[in-house]
């Protein structure tokens, strides 16, 4: 009995130790400051490729990005549901949106995008080749390949969906001032694979389909002091939009999906 009480006292003592912080865990060592963040905080936002390079960060603008430089935005997109599919209900569906750009060479960059809604998510990677065209104009060509996955296991749904898509794209950028970048981008929406499961019944197809096409206008700009944002609008005309996979649209025609987005530079 005495042993048990002693043991419990020891345990209790250990508990008090941690509660009152008498036994401190060692502090984590400070991370080295990201050189990009340091220059950003100093108001220098880019490693200039040439004397005309923009002075603000960008992920959409088709300007060359110095080798090894990374940029990222975290923001939100709002896609309006089309009445063709959702009928009397028309809502803007929000999704988290992380965009990453990493310079592989001075003109070639790796692109990445993760759009997340938890029940359905889309991750894509791609390559982008950018070059100055003339004066304040820049251009880029690229292609993304991405996969989406959705799972709806609630109420009257027992569905899962998965698909692979690709989006070859061209963009033209205009540097209206060193603090405002305007980008117009066109893309082709290709479906590479689709699979859906309802209960135990599965449907899939593997042929390459031209789903549709889209156009995006983006402004990248300084915003309230040192904060920078990418603000844009995307008009997507497509036969399939992964965000609405669970509605099983069967129209064989392109439907207009307006999408507004804002991203804050990290």
């Amino acid at each position, binding site marked *: 009995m005495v042993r048990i009480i002693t043991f419990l006292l020891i345990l209790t003592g250990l508990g008090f130790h941690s509660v009152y912080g008498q036994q401190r865990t060692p502090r984590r060592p400070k991370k080295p400051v990201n050189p990009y963040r340091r220059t950003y905080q100093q108001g220098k936002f880019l490693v200039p490729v040439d004397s005309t390079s923009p002075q603000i960060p960008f992920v959409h603008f088709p300007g060359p990005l110095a080798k090894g430089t990374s940029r990222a935005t975290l923001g939100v997109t709002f896609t309006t549901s089309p009445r063709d599919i959702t*009928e*009397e209900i028309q809502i803007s569906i929000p999704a988290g949106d992380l965009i990453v750009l990493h310079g592989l060479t001075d003109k070639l960059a790796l692109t990445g995008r993760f759009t997340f809604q938890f029940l359905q998510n889309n991750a894509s990677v791609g390559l982008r080749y950018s070059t100055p065209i003339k004066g304040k104009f820049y251009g880029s060509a690229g292609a993304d390949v991405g996969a989406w996955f959705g799972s709806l296991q609630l109420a009257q749904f027992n569905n899962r969906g998965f698909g692979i898509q690709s989006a070859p794209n061209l963009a033209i950028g205009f540097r209206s001032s060193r603090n405002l970048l305007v980008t117009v981008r066109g893309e082709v929406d290709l479906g590479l694979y689709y699979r859906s499961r309802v209960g135990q019944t599965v449907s899939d197809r593997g042929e390459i389909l031209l789903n549709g096409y889209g156009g995006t206008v983006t402004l990248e700009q300084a915003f*309230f002091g040192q904060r920078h944002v990418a603000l844009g609008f995307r*008009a997507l005309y497509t036969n399939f939009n992964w965000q609405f996979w669970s509605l099983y649209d069967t129209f064989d*025609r392109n439907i*207009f999906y307006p999408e507004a987005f804002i991203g804050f530079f990290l």
Partner: protein
Amino acid sequence: MTFSRFIIYSLFVTWAGYLAGCRPGLNDTVLIPQQLTDGLNVAGAKLLYSQTRKACEGVYSVAEGSPIFGGEIAAKWSYLAKKPGDTTYYMSLFCEPQAAFFVLEGRQIGDSLVFEGFWRRLVNAETGTARFVVVEANGASALLAPDCCTALKKGQVIFKGVYGDGDGVRNQLLTLTYDRPLNPKDFQILAHRGGGRTSDLLPASENSVEIIRLAERLGATGVEIDIRQTQDGVPIIYHDNQLNLRLTQKTGLIGAVENYTFDQLDAFVRLRNGEKIPRLTQVLDAVLNETNLQTVWLDSKDVRDMDLIRTIQQTYQQRASQQGRKLTIYIGLPAEERVAQFEALPDHAQLQSICELDTSVARRINAKVWAPRWTLGEQIPSTLAMQQQGRKVFIWTLDVPEFIQQFVQNDTFDGILSNYAPIVAYYHYVHQQ
């Protein structure tokens, strides 16, 4: 950057998006080509006897022509009785790709059979005209002979056809060869909203009397319609909560249909294709007197007086019995509130009803049909349990061809509710048990 500049730039982006978003004309109804029956209205042309029409029904192989209508086609007749003594018979051909279908009228001209009409793909706006001929050497005599109701042999009848796009010249060949009879299983092909959605650009608006008249040509053996009640209690057929441009033409009226009397709706509101919002009784009159539909699913969207709906249901059920019609009118119960209203009826257990809630509720109210949502999957144990209790199982609202095919082939359900009745009809009729 100032806040005002931010607002200006945002407005610029929105404006650019708006311009990019304009797409005029894509919501227009697909017009049925006009040159439909010119080739039938010739001297000496005779209407087809019922046994000839019956003999034409079957599954045909596509023997010649492009594969855009698939490898097999199911032929099925229907009729529309416009008034006593004025009945038009239509032969519909149901195809696999893209919900394609043909609607044809037929005549006997000399010793041949001639069919003319139009084709349409329901999932898009493609349409055109078509003409088929069965000459004597290709089996016309087997269809015209009085004893033709004996089963046809494979290859015995050949439809030689041509079709074209829009109102253009019919210069593309399509030859059909008789293969086998239609799948005889008793199965309900239920057309959503009376026959199809307005957004599928049909020539009649959803939930109208006109779409009911079209439903059988689209392959339906039954229809689902949406019931609401006007301010003065008149049961009407309308889907949405609000009067809106998706379903109606522009008027001065806004808000819920329940805020208006029937006379106000009748006077001022027109559906997208110009029809009036019909009373429930008008729709049931059309079903009973003008079509051969077997099932009506009254989806009680917003019903305040369930007793009135029951009375109407019983009245038309009795009329159908008196006319010798095989017609069942079900009261659809999509939510707990409707079930509670239905259960308050003293004789609810004897009434024909469809329960969209779970199986325990269906048992409790003695629903004659259990109707789960298709997105739950086939639910085979529950479905079999319901069927063993003598209930039918319909699923709603399934439009995806790949899933329709699998659900039909698995032989689980007694009916499928769909916006694409031609697809359900195709997979059902060609299915070999």
